[in-house]
């Protein structure tokens, strides 16, 4: 299967290890992965802040650039949600329906839950709002995590409540966002997990940024990096 990788602007710029891990994982599972270098951004921040006009050409570029692929995979629930739910309202986008968030692609399209991963850490999972509600990924990421050898999965209390990121919301309504973040961090720290994972680097950057400020010792690690980690090539904290 010829898969287009949509890295997302945030992951491309700030978290290249997540995109590299996605490539490694998909290739290990037999996909032919391509990264069209002309890609930039899905336009979500613009659209969600009220700049739909500016988001439109970005949606059009996306549809053109990825139109030929069998499927597009993005290591982000919220960018996938933007493409799948919102792009069709902005531009003709036949590829929107074939754009998947990583865990959906693995479980629904490749039909695997055991991806040969090894990750000997205590992990808790935050289901980001857009993965959970826009895409409805449900238990898929948890099924993948449960199949990882060595991984000790601990449940996150009130996991489905929003972490308070919300794109520009975190700046426009900084105090409210912080109040939401504080509760989320409290639950994360309470699990005594070493690693917090999620399918979105945006939320992880927000929660992780708070956890780092608190010197909590909990590391944010994207789901793709956990699933790509093997005994031969284990995930290392040095790369993040």
């Amino acid at each position, binding site marked *: 299967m010829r898969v287009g990788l949509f890295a997302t602007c945030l992951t491309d710029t*700030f978290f290249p290890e997540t995109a590299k891990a996605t490539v490694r994982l998909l290739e290990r599972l037999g996909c032919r992965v391509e990264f069209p270098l002309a890609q*930039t951004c899905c336009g979500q921040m613009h659209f969600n802040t009220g700049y739909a006009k500016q988001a439109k050409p970005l949606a059009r570029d996306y549809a053109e650039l990825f139109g030929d692929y069998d499927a597009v995979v993005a290591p982000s629930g919220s960018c996938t949600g933007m493409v799948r739910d919102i792009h069709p309202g902005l531009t003709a986008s036949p590829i929107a329906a074939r754009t998947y968030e990583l865990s959906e692609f693995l479980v629904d399209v490749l039909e695997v839950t055991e991806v040969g991963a090894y990750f000997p850490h205590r992990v808790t999972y935050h289901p980001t709002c857009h993965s959970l509600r826009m895409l409805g990924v449900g238990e898929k990421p948890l099924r993948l995590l449960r199949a990882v050898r060595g991984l000790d999965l601990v449940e996150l209390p009130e996991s489905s409540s929003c972490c308070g990121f919300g794109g520009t*919301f975190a700046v426009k309504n900084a105090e409210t966002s*912080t109040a*939401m973040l504080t509760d989320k961090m409290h639950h994360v720290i309470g699990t005594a997990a070493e690693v917090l994972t999620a399918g979105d680097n945006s939320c992880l950057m927000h929660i992780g940024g708070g956890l780092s400020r608190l010197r909590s010792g909990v590391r944010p690690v994207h789901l793709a990096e956990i699933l790509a980690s093997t005994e031969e090539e284990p995930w290392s904290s040095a790369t993040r």
Partner: protein
Amino acid sequence: MVVRNPVTWLGTPAFPKAAKDALANTQLRRNLRNATSTIRGKRAAAVAELPDWERLRAAGAAIKDEVLANLDTYLIRLEAAVTARGGTVHWARDAAEANAIALRLIRATGETEVVKVKSMATAEIGLNEALAEGGVTAIETDLAELIVQLGEDRPSHILVPAIHRNRAEIKEIFQRAMPDVPADLTSEPRALAEAARRHLRRKFLSAKVAISGANFGVAETGSIVVVESEGNGRMCLTLPETLITVMGIEKVVPSWPDLEVFLQLLPRSSTAERMNPYTSVWTGVTPGDGPQAFHLILLDNGRTATLADEVGRQSLRCIRCSACLNVCPVYERTGGEAYGSVYPGPIGAILTPQLVNDPKDKQAASLPFASSLCGACYEVCPVSINIPEVLTHLRARVVENKSSLAPEAIAMRALAWVMADAKRFERAQQAGTLARFLGRDGKITRLPWPGSKWTDVRDVPVPPAESFRSWWRRTRGDQ
């Protein structure tokens, strides 16, 4: 003179500022957290009992959409049916008209005190205040509404306007404002309810005029439906001689079978009950039984303007169950007063700006941004209002009315320009590597404004020296 639409409260600051003040009130936060988390759990359980919930939701949305598409027809049918049964229908374009009609009707009876059934529409138009100016005292009979009224407070929730108060606070309010309160009043829920009951009983027995809202109006028969939990509303609806009902025009349903859907959706979403304890229905007047004069005021107040907007009109499906408030993470932290209107929470964030319908109103314009777009509201809404969709739609409208020279607008355009071309984007990424010099140990702890709003509480990762695309090009070439 332009009359201000009272749907938002005069003097309320824009949401971020109002929220900041509310967030500082730890008592409020605790009260809200307890109340919303309890009702959230109960609602989920009540909804899970019905195997056909999703189909009921779809049916509820479909009925409402059909009504909205043919609103004129149904309203005229409703008017004819009410009139045929001895009621009188009045049409009110806005708050001022509705309030004037109500005051005129009350004056005609010679009364100066009226009892009220809890109603969102009358709160929306500031009826109590308008009546007070005209020399008429309106007494709220719903327990929570009474607490707000006696506390000279503002409502903070659609269903439980006093949700921000705890028992100790309520006891204090009663002791201060209830003339006949027992000397040994405790903060026991039963004792508080009993004190309110005694206080209200005297009012019920003496009132000659009652004012209500309406949950539904059945076009076919002209029947008005009010659902409630306490039974105080029913006293108002049956004991007085004159009954005045203020009903938003979107509350009409075609016929009785439609109620079957809503009477399942509403109580489970709202109070997590299988059925609400009191459902009162009346049709015009019945000689010798109940009020002998019935007036129905049909209220527009921004609704037809809302109806004209293709995306925004779904907001008019709302049946005021308040489920969206109870699941909203923003509402849970800030409470209802921060929204500056009788419609708080997610529904308030979309309905209030549309009813206000004034792009220059800064406070109303701040409301569509009072959301992280987490989608929890859409998930629970019994009539499937896509609240996040309306939020982003209304944000776009705010942006349209903003100066193109506003710093945000300039930044957004600049960013879109960068993103529109991968080469430009890559150059910006490389320039961003400068940020590494700001940071230590792989993180940035302080950014200049407006980034400081982020770094006040969160570190920022330092962008790595090599972006993914550079890595890809280095290792895989230009494929």
